[in-house]
């Protein structure tokens, strides 16, 4: 259910995470790979990075507590992410002709700790440029909550993107940030 209020949105770690240098590098690489898949419009592979019960969230308000009481620029579960991808790839997607080209710069990766369910909370900075008819630049603080997989990789449980201009006037936001 999209508005499942039990979904754990907290970004405050309850326990410390101790990661080896190699594991930390793995987390960073995961974030870089995610950005790369979006830049290269490899949406199917990007969808596969997500856990089953997971949410992509871009709040509309600074310091927004939840997506239930207030509107959000994006609040998407797997079904809605898949639907967005289907539209982006549909041959009659008039507003994607030409497509949105994008370039993401991810940096300042910091491991914050673990949430009560053991998800790894990772904070990073995103500088995002896109071009479709005109150029647009966006900047954000991003929080990922990552689930460890049995194979030693990661799946995204929550990706929260806090845009510096979330309260601005926007032209269409068609692609994931």
């Amino acid at each position: 259910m999209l508005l499942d209020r039990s979904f754990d949105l907290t970004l405050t770690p309850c326990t410390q995470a101790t990661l080896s240098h190699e594991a930390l590098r793995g987390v960073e690489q995961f974030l870089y790979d995610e950005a790369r898949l979006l830049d290269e419009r490899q949406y199917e592979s990007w969808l596969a990075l997500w856990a089953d019960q997971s949410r992509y969230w871009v709040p509309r308000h600074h310091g927004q507590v939840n997506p239930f009481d207030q509107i959000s620029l994006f609040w998407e579960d797997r079904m809605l992410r898949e639907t967005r991808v289907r539209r982006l790839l549909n041959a009659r997607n008039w507003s994607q002709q030409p497509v949105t080209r994008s370039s993401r710069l991810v940096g300042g990766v910091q491991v914050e700790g673990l949430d009560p369910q053991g998800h790894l909370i990772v904070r990073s900075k995103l500088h995002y440029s896109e071009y479709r008819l005109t150029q647009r630049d966006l900047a954000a603080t991003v929080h990922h909550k990552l689930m460890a997989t049995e194979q030693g990789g990661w799946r995204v449980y929550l990706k929260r993107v806090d845009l510096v201009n979330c309260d601005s006037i926007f032209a269409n936001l068609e692609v994931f940030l």
Partner: protein
Amino acid sequence: MNSEELAALIRPDRVHKSVYTDTSIFELEMERIYGRAWIYVGHESQVPGTGDFHTTRIGNQDVVMVRGQDGQVHVLYNRCPHKGAKLVAEGDGCAGKFFRCPYHAWTFKLDGSHLSAPLRSGFEGTQYNPASPQFSMRQVARVELYRGFVFASQSDSGIGLRDFLGGAASSIDNLCDRSPVGEVEVAGGVFRVMQPSNWKVFYENLHDTMHARITHESSFMAAREEAEVIGEMPFELLIQDGNGEPYAFWEKLELRAYHHGHGYMEGIFDPNAATRDPVSRAHFACLTEAYGEARARDILGMNRHNTILYGSGSPHNVFQQFRVIRPLAVDRTLVEIQLFRCKGAPPEVYDRALTYANLINSPSSNVMPDDVEVYRRCQEGNQTFGGDWVSLHRYLGTDHQLPDGAVSTNGTSELPMRNQFAAWRDYMLDDSPLHADNTITSECPHHAA
């Protein structure tokens, strides 16, 4: 541009493309439409306490809606009479007990009247007069509320708000009646979306049923494909799927046109869903307790999709939103998307409205970008030498005339556009019945045709 030239741009079955592209016509619209008509400023719930303000635009004017000491809502031009600085910053806030200019500390009561200026001795022997309107913030000429919706007119005379809204007021009534106490409040924040096109294109599109399955093919196909894969069509997909209905569906819908360009379009969703879907069922039970079963059925049965209040925007009573349309330039239109909570209704009603706002009306909507794209293409295409006229021929001459407007005999009629341009013509010509000195509303010529 004189009246004869303006009149020549509007014909019963077509309009000249310059109405969308000519900056001098846009300037004239600001004066003659937005300077005269009742324009929605905001909802009084946006300024709940004394001194609370909300800034917005009426046509090309920056205004501030504020709650006064006496509890009344005032609408003032956002200008200090001293040097002209805007008194308050863009957005929402609280001025406290009075406005204070950040430039030289002139202060004004919340109704805009002059309170004080520092070092008054400096004005001795001058024409400075705190009692003169020249030294106060100017109020917009007329302000009226309709069930909490605040409208203002920059013209000091003309028809009242209720007469202006005509039959379209029933959509506001229905939006409010969906609350068991008959009241709504703006909740959850407001989206603001920019469209690179003329404001009238959006109004026309709101009741354009022929575009739905063409323009929106990518989004309704995406919703359908997803529903097939997951084996169900939940609300989130249903509202993206609606545009994919076949032509036969749209032909059966009712389009209602009222004077002054207003109107509504019948709903896309089944009104009898009240007894099937759990959210509607809970809502129905709540309204039955408040109003009785028959009235509750009537309220939830008023199944309208977009309503048009020409010059203000488009309320959506079924999902409690209001897309407020603010023209910024001949080719630039700001849309403020408000979401309402029906006071006292079950929380799921708000949840559903919030989901509708997020998925359909937000900048990240899967549906709207294709609209915005075709609006832009119209804006740019109409600047080529490829032709001079925009066609409004569909089902011309078949619309059924009513004392207060017309109703379509076919849901794909371009009646709404013809009705909007009949109103446009009334506003824009010198002999307009909407002018301050011509208070009698005449039958619009196109309805009579």
